[in-house]
Structures are given as C-alpha cells and as structure tokens.
C-alpha cells in the first residue's frame, strides 16, 4: 500500500426499533456523508469508509473502501440489538483491515468510528468487547445515542466521547452526518497520541446534539 488511509467505520443499529424514518434517515445520511467527502480533496485521497450494521447479528455490509469507490448500501431494520457482535466484528476489522506503522511501512491514520444506537443491547457479550476496545484504544470512537431510549451508560463503556441526539427526525440525522463529515475532514491534522483529551479534535456538534459529560 502506498497511500496512507484514514479509515472510517460507521456502526449502525439496524434493530427493529429503527424501522421507518430512523433507518431511512441513516441511509440518507450515509449517502450525504459520501457526497460531502467526495467534495474534499484530502478525503478523496485518504478516506476509506466501511459500514457495519447490527441487529440479531453484525454484518460488515461494506468493507473498508476508498471514498471514490464507495457505494452507500441499502439498510433494513429488524430484529434485536446484538451490540456485542458489532463490537466483536469491529475489533476483527481492526485486526484484518488496518495497517499500523512498522519500520517498513507508514501506517494508516488512527481509525474513526461512529456508533449509532437507539436502544440498549439485548446480548450478554457486549461488555467484554467494550472492555477490549477501552483497553486497546485502537480507534477514535464517537458514540451517538439516538433518541430517548438509547442507553448512554452502555455507550460510555465503549468510549468517553458520547453525544446525544434526542430528536430522530431526518433533519437531525442530516445535521449529525454533516458533523461526521466535518470530523473526518479535520482528523488528518497532527494530533497527540496521549489520552489527554487532545487525541482527536472534533468540530462543535450541531444544534440538537449534545456531548454527554
């Protein structure tokens, strides 16, 4: 590989509670994210997108794909919320898809992960994978609690950066995905690697979306 990549993973809850407007908004938002990144030259040259969905099980619908070759997938909402399987699959993807710096090769930028969930996990395994992620810190993870039923506490177990989107209207999702694309564009700046709060610079969240302290 001669190009250093900024890997971006979207983990989208596609459980039954996301049926209707929410899942259509997520689908539209991913399309919007793609269009936004296609208008940014650094993103065109560096950003790679992957879509992982989770309901009864987790699936990587789109493996890490360069922005110019990415095609937004269809999304369908049904089933439970197997969050543990999503985190397990994410960890697997880090192990198989991400290139780290070695004496022979410059690695990828630290991956960006956006997790969207509107509820609470229905599986019993999520805590062990959340712990693995918290210990290994293989990525900058931003979790989005969608709506009033989302379990913020669970998401806080995965990452310190949790934002709340109480309104699940199409406009709110649109604003959120604008935030995602702005975050991706900012991330290629030099950052510190120590966990002092300076490991990632995020743009301010849009109105209606708040950072959970």
């Amino acid at each position: 590989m001669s190009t250093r990549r900024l890997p971006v993973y979207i983990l989208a809850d596609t459980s039954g509670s996301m049926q209707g407007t929410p899942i259509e908004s997520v689908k539209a938002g991913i399309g919007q994210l793609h269009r936004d990144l296609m208008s940014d030259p650094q993103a065109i040259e560096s950003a790679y997108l992957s879509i992982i969905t989770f309901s009864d099980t987790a699936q990587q619908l789109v493996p890490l794909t360069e922005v110019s070759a990415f095609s937004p997938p269809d999304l369908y909402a049904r089933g439970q919320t197997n969050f543990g399987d999503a985190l397990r699959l994410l960890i697997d993807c880090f192990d198989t898809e991400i290139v780290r710096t070695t004496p022979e090769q410059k690695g990828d930028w630290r991956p960006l992960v956006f997790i969207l969930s509107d509820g609470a996990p229905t599986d019993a395994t999520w805590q062990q994978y959340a712990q693995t992620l918290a210990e290994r810190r293989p990525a900058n993870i931003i979790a989005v609690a969608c709506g009033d039923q989302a379990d913020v506490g669970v998401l806080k177990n995965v990452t310190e950066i949790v934002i709340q989107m109480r309104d699940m209207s199409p406009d709110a999702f649109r604003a959120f995905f604008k935030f995602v694309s702005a975050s991706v564009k900012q991330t290629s700046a030099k950052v510190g690697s120590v966990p002092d709060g300076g490991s990632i610079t995020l743009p301010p969240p849009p109105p209606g979306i708040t950072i959970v302290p």
Partner: protein
Amino acid sequence: MLRRFLSPHDPGTTSVPAPGADVDPSSPPASTPPPVAAGWTEKEPEQPWLPEALREVMPSLATHAYAHADAVRATGAAWEATGATRRGRVHAHAGDFREDAMAVHVADDLVVAVVSDGAGSARWSRVGAEATCRAVVDAAVAAWPALAAAPGDALDAGLGAALGDGVVRAATTLREAATAAGGQSRDFRCTVVALAWGRAQGREAMVLVQVGDGIAAVRRTDGAVERPAAGDSGDFSGEVTCFVPDDGCEGFARRVVALDAATVDAVLVATDGIEDPFYPIARRGADVFRQLAEGNDATLDGFVRQPAHGPVVGHADGAAHLATWLGFEKRGENDDRTIVVLARRAGSAGS
C-alpha cells in the same frame, strides 16, 4: 483569492474513456482507471501570520516575513546548506498558513540546521515552530565561542547541550507567551529536529536532538544511508507522544545523539511532510540523496510525479532546485514540506 489547479488525474488530462463511451474492440483492454481527481484549490489566509493576541507578548516575531514557500542556500568552508519549505495542499486548500518552519546557520566552524512542524490541531503552532527554530539556532550560536575554546573531548556533549538548551528555552518562552496571551501552551505545539556540526581545535562534532516526528538522515562516505534517531511516532500516522512545549519535552531535548562526523558527507533534516512520503528513509534515502546531488528527471515508484530539476548540491541555483523537488506529488501526501540538506564540501572531511 481562490485559484484552482488540476491534478494530473483530472479528466481533461487523461485518455480514459468516459463511462458509456464507445470503445474500439481492437484496442487493448483498459488498464485500471486513474484515481478520481481531488480538486485542490489555493486560498489566501484571512488573518495575519502573527495573531493579534501574540503581538505584544512575542514582539520579535512581529517583523517575521512569512511566505508560503521559501528557499535558502549558504556555504561555509566545510559545509554547504540548502533548505526549502513549502505550504502543503491541505493548508492551501483551507486558506491556512504553512505551519512548518526552518532555520539554518552556516559558518566555517559551526553549522546548525533546524526544522519544526506545527501541530495542525494547535491554533498558534506556526508561531511555535518559527520561535523554536530561532531559539535553537540562537542557543547554539551563543554557546559556540565557549565550546570552541574548550577541550576537544567536550565538544560533542557541549554542542548537544546547546541544542537542548535551545529547545528548553523555546519551551519556556512559548509557555510564558501562552499565559500572557490568555492561551494554553498546547496552542503552540510543534515538533523539532535540530542538527549541529562544529569543528574546533582539530576536533569535529555532529549532534542531533529531536522532539516529536520528522527525520534526520545521514549519508556516510561509503554511500550508506542511516537514520541515527528513531523519532517519535505511534502505531498510526500523525501521532506524536510529546511536542514542544509539552511537559516532558525537556527530557527529549536532552537525549542527544552524537554522530561520527568524519564519516558523514551529507545530512538531511526534514519534517514529516518529507519523512512520510519517503518512508522508510533507510530504503528510500539513497534515492533522495542521489536526486538532490545529481538533479532528477524521473519519478520514484509510488509517486504520481516528481518534477524535473537540476542538482541541489554544489549548484548556484540549488535552492531553487530544492524548492522544485518539494513539488513532488504522491497521493494522500499533502502536508507542509520542509527540508534542509547539508553537503560536505570537497577537501573538508575530517579534522
């Protein structure tokens, strides 16, 4: 002012048929289509290089003549130094300033080359980089007369300590400036790679100090290229554990690498805008030194394009040639680029 320039892969400059276009069945199968054109633009910054908040607390920088690109060349009895710096596409597209800086001092008995890269996430990092380069050169130049008069065995240690002192003074200055300006010291975050060579009383010394990423590479007289210090980088690109003026940068500033100067005939110090495209320098360094010494009319594997230019070393237009060399294109490599090349002059090797 907005200017748009095309990459070589813009549709108008390639011969790949548009989707749906008729293709001659007798023509060979199409190869992989070129990457999508990125569409870079260039914009001018809308604020002054030295922010208003810093004008009173850092008056020595008020007259700094910033330019998006710069090149210098200086020659002493033993070494020729050529440096060049240029704003990267990312910053040009965003209308930001170059955040890299460089400083060079060349005298018959003392050469100092310093490069610094401001952290993109730090609002005053371009000022931090410039201030750090100046502080390191000033410290080495100020310390040199006493070092030159000292016993020869102390030359390495003394010169290394002088570079370290410069970094420490830069850190102190930046912290004080941050406080006075109502900011935080992290607002000035930058890396530094500093190399000094000195000759006195029949002895030569060459030392290196580094905080953060960036690179120093030496070419030995037998042609071997080495990287004398590992630099600071993490598992992923763009990650640094310690910047100037973070707490703890003093520790890095005191880790001096002493080189066997007698066997070195060329050195480069550069920010990661050079390190990353040519990584690993242990494998690519020979090509880099050759291009700089001889001039270049080819493009290395993995690069989109390297512009043709004349020799950098030993040429009156070497600075301009180095500036041209900085115009290489490699997909995804759009950071500021800064490099200083030191070439030993013929007949000056050893003590």
